[in-house]
């Protein structure tokens, strides 16, 4: 009897364990750090998955100006996805540093000439950096050792139409104010591609939306070619016109071209 009971208890226990693991697997958000896949050595890729599919993808290279803190590989990632709000937390060095980005989606009315169009956009509305000044590898003789939080105030950055991913190769700089005596910390993100909402398939970015700097750079690069082509066209037309002008107004030659005839005239 005890054997049977033991086996039943065992199997129930095993079964319960299995159920518990299964539920954890199913509901837990998987976060993966796929930084090994990116081409840029400073760039990191952060993915938040929910219900077996990706719901937030971000890749960027992050540097802080003052303390030259950089996101190392293998940082821990957490995230929350939602319909109108999303968050991404990256922490490293045993939670000594945490970098948090808060996204939000909203409707905007773009009014022009009395016609008002409602468009949906998403943006970053808050960025936070938690750092520990008692951590010896980056801070020497910190004035106020301990954990401090630096965050932005009233930020509205990376505004993108909904359903698209934001792409920017140029550097974007944000200034954060620290709780530590209101010190200013600047962080720069470069080589960005982020999509916090409406990811259609696993690990696939939706249609990219280029930032203004990139658009300008593209324009700057194509402009010389366009101008050069126009110039070449003008030159070809000018030379052709000149050629026909010469042909039409060619003077009649009065003197004999061949000078041997000269000799015959006078000598």
């Amino acid at each position, binding site marked *: 009897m005890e054997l049977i009971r033991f086996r039943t208890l065992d199997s129930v226990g095993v079964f319960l364990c299995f159920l518990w693991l299964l539920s954890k697997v199913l509901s837990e958000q998987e976060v993966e750090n796929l930084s090994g896949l990116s081409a840029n050595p400073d760039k990191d890729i952060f993915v938040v998955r929910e219900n077996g599919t990706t719901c937030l993808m971000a890749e960027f290279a992050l540097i802080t100006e003052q303390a030259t803190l950089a996101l190392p590989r293998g940082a821990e990632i957490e995230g929350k996805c939602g319909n109108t709000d999303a968050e991404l937390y990256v922490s490293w060095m045993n939670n000594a540093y945490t970098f948090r980005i808060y996204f939000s989606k909203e409707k905007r009315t773009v009014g022009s000439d009395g016609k008002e169009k409602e468009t949906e956009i998403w943006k970053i509305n808050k960025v936070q950096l938690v750092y520990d000044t008692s951590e010896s590898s980056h801070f020497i003789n910190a004035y106020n050792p301990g954990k401090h939080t630096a965050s932005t105030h009233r930020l509205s950055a990376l505004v993108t139409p909904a359903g698209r991913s934001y792409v920017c190769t140029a550097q974007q700089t944000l200034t954060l104010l620290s709780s530590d005596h209101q010190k200013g910390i600047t962080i720069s993100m470069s080589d960005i591609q982020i999509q916090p909402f409406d990811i259609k398939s696993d690990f696939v970015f939706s249609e990219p939306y280029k930032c203004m700097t990139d658009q*300008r750079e593209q*324009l*700057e*690069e194509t*402009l*010389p070619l366009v*101008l*050069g082509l126009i*110039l070449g066209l*003008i*030159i070809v037309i*000018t*030379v052709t016109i*000149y*050629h026909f002008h*010469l042909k039409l107004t*060619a*003077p009649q*030659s009065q003197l004999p*071209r061949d*000078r*041997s005839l*000269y*000799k015959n005239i*006078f*000598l």
Partner: protein
Amino acid sequence: AKVSGVFARIGFQAATDEEALGFAECDDLDYDYRQGMRMDGVQTDDTGGEPDRGGMVEGDSHYQRDGAGPRGSQANTGTCEELGAQDKQKITAWEAGWNVTNAIQGMFVLGLPYAILHGGYLGLFLIIFAAVVCCYTGKILIACLYEENEDGERVRVRDSYVDIANACCAPRFPALGGHVVNVAQIIELVMTCILYVVVSGNLMYNSFPSLPISQKAWSVIATSALVPCAFLKSLKSVSKFSLLCSLAHFVINVLVLAYCLSRAHDWAWEKVKFYIDVKKFPISIGIIVFSYTSQIFLPSLEGNMQKPSEFHCMMEWTHIAACVLKGLFALVAYLTWADATKEVITDNLPGGIRAWVNIFLVAKALLSYPLPFFAAVEVLEKSLFQDEGRALFPNCYGSGGQLKSWGLGLRIALVIFTLLMAIFVPHFALLMGLTGSLTGAGLCFLLPSLFHLRLLWRKLLWHQVFFDVSIFVIGGVCSISGFIHSIEGLIEAFKYNIHD
């Protein structure tokens, strides 16, 4: 008639030495005809433009072979008939002066206050000294064009720098000197043209940073304004551009000087140094010394002047004016900003004035372009495009003196070439410093003194020989130091680029 023509020819050849071979560009038949007819006292239409001379012995400077200048634009076919028509196209001494001013008061004046920062009083002295030396070398270069004939009169036997070089190497290598000078001239002139395109693109880009137009796009726009230069036919029209250019330069000077004078109470007289910064000054030496380079244009200018006797006067006045303006500008600008003087003085100016100065600088760069371009076209045409197999390609000009359409195409191709070099060559200023220290120093200091010594050795007084030798030595030293520094600068720039 024929017999007297033969005697006339023998007499002519006896009177001059072998330099008369230079005259042989005249067609032989033509020559026989004219000399024969003249001995008979018959005036013809063809020689109507020339005054009644005893014939062939002494020329005054009117009797010139075709070569540079307006003759290049008319039939460059070697007939002497067009010579009479040349007088219409000749330039006055004032116009020659504007051209020389265009050449010696260039864009580098903006770097002079920085030179004073590192050189102090020595820099000022060098500005004055370089003007004197370059005026002297210009005069001796033109003196090489003339020879004294048997009657003691000065005859213009050579027409261009190339001819002087050929005459110097005459016995053993009759064409080597000419080739060397040709190559040096073409490099110097084309690099100057490219520099103007680069500078105008750079200035426009810095003036309008908010527009999405990059420096390359501005260079293309600047070149489209310069394409009409391909239609330039005579030195007279080039002189008009040089006049406008000098005016623009004058306005820039006035603007900056007025601003500096408005801060006269702040001037730091005590900061002008007596010692020099050994590392940075050699580059400044290059900027000061090579900014007076006008010798390339002088043979052609002098040949096209209505009264060549005014040449010396013109040289002196233009160099004095350049020296005074440059010295004043450099000193006053340095005194205003003292240690904060930047490499290009416009960076020190406040926003409003800087915008205006930039606009005038761009205008100056564009208006300076026609002179070296025209000179480059002339040099190329003379060396590569002549009639009857004298050179590699057929003549660019048709029978009526009209430019053929493929000639026009080639000129426009040269403009486009300068544009492409301006866009695609990196670190152009350093490269220009490199070639400038070789070709610029060579054509301005080394070669004139060398040729002067070689050709006029018998007639030189001791102090002239001393000047020539010392100029040669100083020029050599400047050239070598400039070359070394440019190489160093280029290597550093490329290393920085690779690491970037």
